[in-house]
């Protein structure tokens, strides 16, 4: 615990260490710290700017989206209208076609009926002639009684 040269030795080494620290340690570390501070400040400013730009872009996207939606709705409405029109048209065509078919069938049926009636009349005529022949016991000449027969057939 004596005071001796150690005191001076320590003072000298202290001075050397402080001056070395002053020269080689402090300045580079502080420079790096300052630079990083600036960098961070710059980055924060950039980030803020970016956020602003993003907000603007988002607003733009929003309007575009709305436009697109409106357009889509319009297109859908148009398509629906056109579809309805097509359906109506087809309905009308189908109806008229059906009616046409029905009319054709009816006229055919009527024709058939007329033909059948004609056949029937002829057959009834011949049956009547045959029946009359049997009743009279002699052959009835169809040709000589043609007028009577035609009257008869006409009454049927």
């Amino acid at each position, binding site marked *: *615990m*004596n*005071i*001796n*040269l*150690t*005191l*001076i*030795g*320590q*003072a000298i*080494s*202290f*001075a050397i*260490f*402080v001056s*070395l*620290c*002053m020269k*080689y*340690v*402090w300045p*580079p*570390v*502080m*420079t*790096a*710290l300052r*630079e*990083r501070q*600036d*960098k961070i400040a710059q980055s924060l400013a950039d980030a803020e700017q970016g956020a602003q730009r993003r907000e603007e872009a988002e607003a733009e996207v929003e309007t575009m989206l709305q436009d697109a939606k409106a357009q889509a709705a319009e297109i859908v409405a148009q398509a629906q209208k056109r579809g309805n029109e097509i359906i109506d048209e087809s309905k009308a065509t189908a109806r008229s076609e059906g009616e046409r078919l029905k009319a054709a069938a009816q006229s055919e049926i009527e024709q058939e009926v007329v033909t059948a009636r004609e056949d029937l009349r002829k057959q009834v005529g011949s049956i009547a002639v045959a029946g009359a022949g049997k009743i009279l016991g002699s052959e009835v000449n169809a040709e000589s009684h043609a007028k009577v027969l035609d009257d008869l057939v006409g009454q049927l």
Partner: protein
Amino acid sequence: MSDVSTHQPKFDEETLKADVMASSEAGRTTTEYIQHHLQNLVFGVHPENGLSIAHGSEEAAAMGFWAIHLDSMFWSIGLGLLFLWIFKKGADKATSGVPGPLQNFVELIVEFVDENVRETFNGKSEVVAPLALTIFVWVFLMNLMDLIPVDWIPYAAERIGIPYQKIVPSTDVNVTLGMSFSVFALMIYYSLKIKGAGGFFKELAFQPFNSPNVLVQALFVPINLLLEGVALIAKPISLGLRLFGNMYAGELIFILIALLPFYAQWALSVPWALFHILVITLQAFIFMMLTIVYMSMAHEHH
């Protein structure tokens, strides 16, 4: 060095006999054990032995001022170099980009010191901040040696023929006063540089008492000089002795704990070491803060 070898046989005998854990039983008494641990490795000119290493405190005292504590100097310079090495490495890698772990650590401490300097020191100086950094880290490292178990290094040193080894430089009053007087020299230098000799004298002579009356003032000047002079001198002495006292007391308690049986030591040494972690950091911080305050006072005009 020839002297060391002549004393060595006697010394080896001692070490062989002395079980360090229970030194009170074998070669050394408890008192001898404590004294041995508190003795520096002194190298100097002895009146009888000439240039030699002192064996025991009496020989060391006989050497007077012209002797040097080899162990204190070795550990303090070694730790100072360790500080510079670590921080230089961190500083070399320092970039403004993403910092690595070492750079982070170095920056953390540098920023901590820088913040304290900024808060306390208002002048502009290239010296104060690096000075504070050096003091903080260096003193902390020197104090940290206190946490190495007290017997390890002295025992190993004895085995290789070094009779004494005190590994905590801050338990050496020369070391702490050497630093505090350096700080004091800087105080005086900056006081003279910033305030001029006249300004500095005025600060010492016209405070705390002053009077508009010239005669009364003339009476006050010597009183002021005495008061301010004592206050000024007290600064480096209290600065150095505060650190020394704290560390010396802590070391002594570690030595006393080491006298207990080895299986019981942990019960006291662990809590004390944990508490001491706080003390060593705090003492390093106080030394740094007071240095900044003194530098700030030297730079301020009144």
